Protein backbone atom coordinates (compact mmCIF):
# COMPACT_ATOMS: atom_id res chain seq x y z
CA UNK A 1 0.00 0.00 0.00
CA UNK A 2 2.83 2.37 0.90
CA UNK A 3 4.55 1.35 -2.29
CA UNK A 4 1.51 2.21 -4.35
CA UNK A 5 1.32 5.69 -2.89
CA UNK A 6 5.07 6.07 -3.32
CA UNK A 7 4.59 5.29 -7.00
CA UNK A 8 1.98 7.96 -7.52
CA UNK A 9 4.57 10.22 -9.07
CA UNK A 10 4.81 9.35 -12.78
CA UNK A 11 8.54 9.91 -12.92
CA UNK A 12 9.13 7.70 -9.92
CA UNK A 13 6.91 5.06 -11.49
CA UNK A 14 8.94 5.19 -14.70
CA UNK A 15 12.19 4.73 -12.78
CA UNK A 16 10.76 1.90 -10.71
CA UNK A 17 9.26 0.09 -13.66
CA UNK A 18 12.42 0.45 -15.69
CA UNK A 19 14.16 -1.89 -13.27
CA UNK A 20 11.29 -4.33 -13.02
CA UNK A 21 10.31 -4.62 -16.68
CA UNK A 22 13.36 -6.63 -17.80
CA UNK A 23 12.81 -9.12 -14.99
CA UNK A 24 9.15 -9.67 -15.86
CA UNK A 25 10.13 -10.10 -19.49
CA UNK A 26 12.83 -12.65 -18.69
CA UNK A 27 10.60 -14.58 -16.29
CA UNK A 28 7.78 -14.65 -18.82
CA UNK A 29 10.04 -15.86 -21.63
CA UNK A 30 11.56 -18.61 -19.49
CA UNK A 31 8.26 -19.82 -18.04
CA UNK A 32 6.49 -19.77 -21.40
CA UNK A 33 9.42 -21.48 -23.08
CA UNK A 34 9.38 -24.28 -20.54
CA UNK A 35 5.58 -24.35 -20.53
CA UNK A 36 5.09 -24.59 -24.27
CA UNK A 37 7.79 -27.23 -24.62
CA UNK A 38 6.39 -29.33 -21.79
CA UNK A 39 2.80 -28.97 -23.02
CA UNK A 40 3.56 -29.90 -26.60
CA UNK A 41 6.23 -32.52 -26.23
CA UNK A 42 6.02 -34.07 -22.80
CA UNK A 43 2.38 -34.62 -21.98
CA UNK A 44 0.50 -37.85 -22.57
CA UNK A 45 -2.80 -37.99 -24.47
CA UNK A 46 -5.93 -37.85 -22.39
CA UNK A 47 -7.80 -41.15 -22.19
CA UNK A 48 -10.99 -39.40 -23.32
CA UNK A 49 -9.90 -36.50 -25.48
CA UNK A 50 -6.72 -37.89 -26.98
CA UNK A 51 -4.18 -35.34 -28.08
CA UNK A 52 -6.79 -32.58 -28.29
CA UNK A 53 -6.29 -32.13 -24.56
CA UNK A 54 -3.10 -30.25 -25.47
CA UNK A 55 -5.30 -27.29 -26.37
CA UNK A 56 -6.12 -27.03 -22.67
CA UNK A 57 -2.62 -25.68 -22.08
CA UNK A 58 -3.28 -22.63 -24.24
CA UNK A 59 -6.99 -22.22 -23.56
CA UNK A 60 -7.16 -22.34 -19.76
CA UNK A 61 -4.38 -19.80 -19.16
CA UNK A 62 -5.93 -17.42 -21.70
CA UNK A 63 -9.37 -17.77 -20.12
CA UNK A 64 -7.97 -17.23 -16.66
CA UNK A 65 -6.06 -14.14 -17.78
CA UNK A 66 -9.20 -12.66 -19.34
CA UNK A 67 -10.86 -12.72 -15.96
CA UNK A 68 -7.77 -11.86 -13.92
CA UNK A 69 -7.02 -8.79 -16.02
CA UNK A 70 -10.58 -7.59 -15.64
CA UNK A 71 -10.10 -7.86 -11.90
CA UNK A 72 -6.93 -5.77 -12.19
CA UNK A 73 -8.79 -3.24 -14.30
CA UNK A 74 -11.69 -3.03 -11.87
CA UNK A 75 -9.38 -2.72 -8.86
CA UNK A 76 -7.39 0.04 -10.54
CA UNK A 77 -10.66 1.77 -11.43
CA UNK A 78 -11.79 1.61 -7.80
CA UNK A 79 -8.49 3.02 -6.56
CA UNK A 80 -8.75 5.79 -9.12
CA UNK A 81 -12.29 6.75 -8.23
CA UNK A 82 -12.02 6.48 -4.46
CA UNK A 83 -8.41 7.44 -3.71
CA UNK A 84 -7.81 9.58 -6.82
CA UNK A 85 -4.43 7.88 -7.31
CA UNK A 86 -3.01 9.64 -10.36
CA UNK A 87 -1.74 6.52 -12.11
CA UNK A 88 -4.75 4.33 -11.44
CA UNK A 89 -6.49 5.27 -14.68
CA UNK A 90 -3.26 4.66 -16.59
CA UNK A 91 -3.14 1.19 -15.06
CA UNK A 92 -6.73 0.41 -16.00
CA UNK A 93 -6.46 1.80 -19.53
CA UNK A 94 -3.26 -0.12 -20.19
CA UNK A 95 -4.67 -3.41 -18.98
CA UNK A 96 -7.83 -3.40 -21.07
CA UNK A 97 -6.51 -4.28 -24.56
CA UNK A 98 -4.44 -7.09 -23.05
CA UNK A 99 -7.48 -8.49 -21.27
CA UNK A 100 -9.51 -8.30 -24.47
CA UNK A 101 -6.76 -10.09 -26.39
CA UNK A 102 -6.59 -12.89 -23.81
CA UNK A 103 -10.37 -13.26 -23.85
CA UNK A 104 -10.49 -13.41 -27.64
CA UNK A 105 -7.72 -15.98 -27.55
CA UNK A 106 -9.66 -18.02 -25.01
CA UNK A 107 -12.70 -17.99 -27.30
CA UNK A 108 -10.71 -19.05 -30.38
CA UNK A 109 -8.84 -21.84 -28.61
CA UNK A 110 -11.97 -22.89 -26.76
CA UNK A 111 -13.83 -23.23 -30.04
CA UNK A 112 -11.09 -25.44 -31.46
CA UNK A 113 -10.90 -27.50 -28.28
CA UNK A 114 -14.62 -28.12 -28.24
CA UNK A 115 -15.02 -28.95 -31.91
CA UNK A 116 -13.98 -32.62 -31.66
CA UNK A 117 -16.29 -33.08 -28.69
CA UNK A 118 -19.27 -31.04 -29.84
CA UNK A 119 -19.14 -31.56 -33.61
CA UNK A 120 -19.52 -27.79 -34.07
CA UNK A 121 -17.21 -24.83 -33.63
CA UNK A 122 -19.45 -23.20 -31.09
CA UNK A 123 -21.66 -24.59 -28.41
CA UNK A 124 -23.99 -22.39 -26.40
CA UNK A 125 -24.08 -25.10 -23.76
CA UNK A 126 -20.69 -24.26 -22.30
CA UNK A 127 -21.54 -21.59 -19.76
CA UNK A 128 -17.94 -20.56 -19.21
CA UNK A 129 -17.28 -19.97 -22.90
CA UNK A 130 -20.54 -18.08 -23.40
CA UNK A 131 -19.78 -15.87 -20.40
CA UNK A 132 -16.37 -15.20 -21.93
CA UNK A 133 -18.03 -14.04 -25.13
CA UNK A 134 -20.03 -11.50 -23.17
CA UNK A 135 -16.88 -10.52 -21.26
CA UNK A 136 -15.23 -9.76 -24.60
CA UNK A 137 -18.08 -7.40 -25.48
CA UNK A 138 -17.71 -5.73 -22.11
CA UNK A 139 -14.00 -5.21 -22.75
CA UNK A 140 -14.71 -3.76 -26.19
CA UNK A 141 -17.31 -1.38 -24.78
CA UNK A 142 -14.84 -0.25 -22.12
CA UNK A 143 -12.13 0.44 -24.69
CA UNK A 144 -14.64 2.18 -26.98
CA UNK A 145 -15.74 4.43 -24.12
CA UNK A 146 -12.14 5.48 -23.42
CA UNK A 147 -11.69 6.35 -27.09
CA UNK A 148 -15.02 8.11 -27.53
CA UNK A 149 -14.68 10.73 -24.79
CA UNK A 150 -12.33 13.56 -25.71
CA UNK A 151 -11.42 14.88 -22.29
CA UNK A 152 -8.94 12.39 -20.77
CA UNK A 153 -9.99 13.05 -17.17
CA UNK A 154 -13.65 12.53 -18.00
CA UNK A 155 -12.84 9.46 -20.05
CA UNK A 156 -10.87 7.96 -17.18
CA UNK A 157 -13.68 8.48 -14.67
CA UNK A 158 -16.42 7.27 -17.03
CA UNK A 159 -14.42 4.17 -17.89
CA UNK A 160 -13.80 3.54 -14.20
CA UNK A 161 -17.53 3.64 -13.41
CA UNK A 162 -18.20 1.30 -16.31
CA UNK A 163 -15.49 -1.12 -15.16
CA UNK A 164 -17.01 -1.29 -11.69
CA UNK A 165 -20.56 -1.74 -12.96
CA UNK A 166 -19.27 -4.50 -15.21
CA UNK A 167 -17.42 -6.12 -12.32
CA UNK A 168 -20.65 -6.30 -10.35
CA UNK A 169 -22.58 -7.63 -13.33
CA UNK A 170 -20.18 -10.28 -14.66
CA UNK A 171 -20.87 -12.82 -11.86
CA UNK A 172 -24.60 -12.26 -12.38
CA UNK A 173 -24.19 -12.78 -16.12
CA UNK A 174 -22.28 -15.99 -15.54
CA UNK A 175 -24.96 -17.21 -13.14
CA UNK A 176 -27.74 -16.43 -15.58
CA UNK A 177 -25.96 -18.16 -18.47
CA UNK A 178 -25.37 -21.17 -16.26
CA UNK A 179 -29.02 -21.27 -15.22
CA UNK A 180 -30.09 -20.91 -18.83
CA UNK A 181 -27.98 -23.88 -19.78
CA UNK A 182 -29.30 -26.22 -17.11
CA UNK A 183 -32.66 -25.42 -18.62
CA UNK A 184 -31.93 -26.42 -22.15
CA UNK A 185 -29.01 -28.80 -22.20
CA UNK A 186 -27.82 -31.82 -20.28
CA UNK A 187 -25.09 -30.48 -18.06
CA UNK A 188 -21.51 -31.61 -17.92
CA UNK A 189 -20.98 -33.38 -21.22
CA UNK A 190 -20.79 -30.14 -23.12
CA UNK A 191 -18.31 -28.41 -20.86
CA UNK A 192 -14.77 -28.01 -21.97
CA UNK A 193 -12.24 -29.99 -20.05
CA UNK A 194 -14.27 -32.95 -19.05
CA UNK A 195 -14.67 -34.35 -15.56
CA UNK A 196 -11.17 -35.51 -14.67
CA UNK A 197 -7.80 -34.23 -15.74
CA UNK A 198 -4.73 -36.41 -15.38
CA UNK A 199 -2.43 -35.25 -12.56
CA UNK A 200 0.51 -35.11 -14.92
CA UNK A 201 -1.20 -32.20 -16.64
CA UNK A 202 -1.23 -30.01 -13.57
CA UNK A 203 2.43 -28.96 -13.52
CA UNK A 204 2.71 -27.76 -17.14
CA UNK A 205 -0.69 -26.10 -16.84
CA UNK A 206 0.41 -24.17 -13.78
CA UNK A 207 3.64 -23.15 -15.46
CA UNK A 208 1.66 -21.85 -18.42
CA UNK A 209 -0.71 -19.93 -16.18
CA UNK A 210 2.12 -18.28 -14.27
CA UNK A 211 3.97 -17.65 -17.52
CA UNK A 212 0.92 -15.93 -19.02
CA UNK A 213 0.63 -13.85 -15.85
CA UNK A 214 4.20 -12.65 -16.12
CA UNK A 215 3.69 -11.95 -19.81
CA UNK A 216 0.75 -9.77 -18.83
CA UNK A 217 2.77 -8.01 -16.12
CA UNK A 218 5.56 -7.29 -18.57
CA UNK A 219 3.32 -5.89 -21.30
CA UNK A 220 1.13 -4.07 -18.79
CA UNK A 221 4.09 -2.20 -17.27
CA UNK A 222 5.37 -1.48 -20.76
CA UNK A 223 2.01 -0.04 -21.85
CA UNK A 224 1.76 2.03 -18.68
CA UNK A 225 5.18 3.52 -19.44
CA UNK A 226 4.01 4.23 -22.97
CA UNK A 227 0.88 5.97 -21.74
CA UNK A 228 2.83 8.13 -19.29
CA UNK A 229 5.35 9.02 -21.99
CA UNK A 230 2.56 9.89 -24.43
CA UNK A 231 0.97 12.19 -21.87
CA UNK A 232 4.33 13.84 -21.27
CA UNK A 233 4.76 14.28 -25.03
CA UNK A 234 1.32 15.90 -25.26
CA UNK A 235 2.04 18.34 -22.46
CA UNK A 236 5.41 19.18 -23.96
CA UNK A 237 3.73 19.91 -27.28
CA UNK A 238 1.16 22.14 -25.60
CA UNK A 239 3.88 24.01 -23.69
CA UNK A 240 5.76 24.48 -26.93
CA UNK A 241 2.72 26.01 -28.52
CA UNK A 242 2.46 28.56 -25.71
Amino acid sequence: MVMITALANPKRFLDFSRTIVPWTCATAVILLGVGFYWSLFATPPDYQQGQSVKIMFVHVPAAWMGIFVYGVMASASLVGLVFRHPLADVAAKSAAPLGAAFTALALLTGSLWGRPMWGTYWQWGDARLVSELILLFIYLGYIALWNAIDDPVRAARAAAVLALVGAADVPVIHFSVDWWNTLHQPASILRLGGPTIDKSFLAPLLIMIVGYTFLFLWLWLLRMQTEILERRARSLMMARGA
Partner: protein
Amino acid sequence: MTGFFAMGGYAVFVWPAYAVTFTVLIAAIILSLQSHKQAKKAVRELEEEGSVTEDHG
Protein backbone atom coordinates in the same frame (compact mmCIF):
# COMPACT_ATOMS: atom_id res chain seq x y z
CA MET B 1 7.67 -37.86 -36.15
CA THR B 2 4.65 -37.75 -38.43
CA GLY B 3 2.77 -39.34 -35.57
CA PHE B 4 3.58 -36.31 -33.45
CA PHE B 5 2.34 -33.88 -36.09
CA ALA B 6 -0.80 -35.90 -36.58
CA MET B 7 -1.67 -35.37 -32.90
CA GLY B 8 -3.65 -38.58 -32.84
CA GLY B 9 -5.94 -37.26 -35.57
CA TYR B 10 -6.62 -33.97 -33.85
CA ALA B 11 -3.93 -32.05 -35.74
CA VAL B 12 -6.43 -29.79 -37.50
CA PHE B 13 -7.54 -28.52 -34.10
CA VAL B 14 -4.38 -28.57 -32.01
CA TRP B 15 -2.00 -26.85 -34.41
CA PRO B 16 -4.32 -23.95 -35.32
CA ALA B 17 -4.95 -23.45 -31.61
CA TYR B 18 -1.25 -23.11 -30.91
CA ALA B 19 -0.73 -21.06 -34.06
CA VAL B 20 -3.39 -18.54 -33.14
CA THR B 21 -1.97 -18.41 -29.61
CA PHE B 22 1.52 -17.61 -30.86
CA THR B 23 0.14 -15.06 -33.31
CA VAL B 24 -1.91 -13.17 -30.74
CA LEU B 25 0.78 -13.21 -28.05
CA ILE B 26 3.56 -12.18 -30.41
CA ALA B 27 1.39 -9.47 -31.95
CA ALA B 28 0.65 -8.11 -28.47
CA ILE B 29 4.36 -8.06 -27.68
CA ILE B 30 5.37 -6.38 -30.92
CA LEU B 31 2.63 -3.75 -30.74
CA SER B 32 3.43 -2.92 -27.13
CA LEU B 33 7.15 -2.64 -27.81
CA GLN B 34 6.57 -0.52 -30.92
CA SER B 35 4.28 2.02 -29.29
CA HIS B 36 6.69 2.22 -26.36
CA LYS B 37 9.60 2.96 -28.68
CA GLN B 38 7.60 5.60 -30.53
CA ALA B 39 6.54 7.31 -27.33
CA LYS B 40 10.10 7.33 -25.99
CA LYS B 41 11.34 8.82 -29.25
CA ALA B 42 8.65 11.49 -29.26
CA VAL B 43 9.44 12.58 -25.72
CA ARG B 44 13.18 12.61 -26.37
CA GLU B 45 12.77 14.74 -29.49
CA LEU B 46 10.43 17.18 -27.78
CA GLU B 47 12.76 17.51 -24.80
CA GLU B 48 15.78 18.14 -27.02
CA GLU B 49 13.81 20.72 -28.95
CA GLY B 50 12.87 22.39 -25.71
CA SER B 51 16.45 22.56 -24.43
CA VAL B 52 17.71 23.83 -27.80
CA THR B 53 15.23 26.72 -27.84
CA GLU B 54 16.12 27.47 -24.24
CA ASP B 55 19.78 27.87 -25.18
CA HIS B 56 18.81 30.29 -27.89
CA GLY B 57 16.76 32.21 -25.29
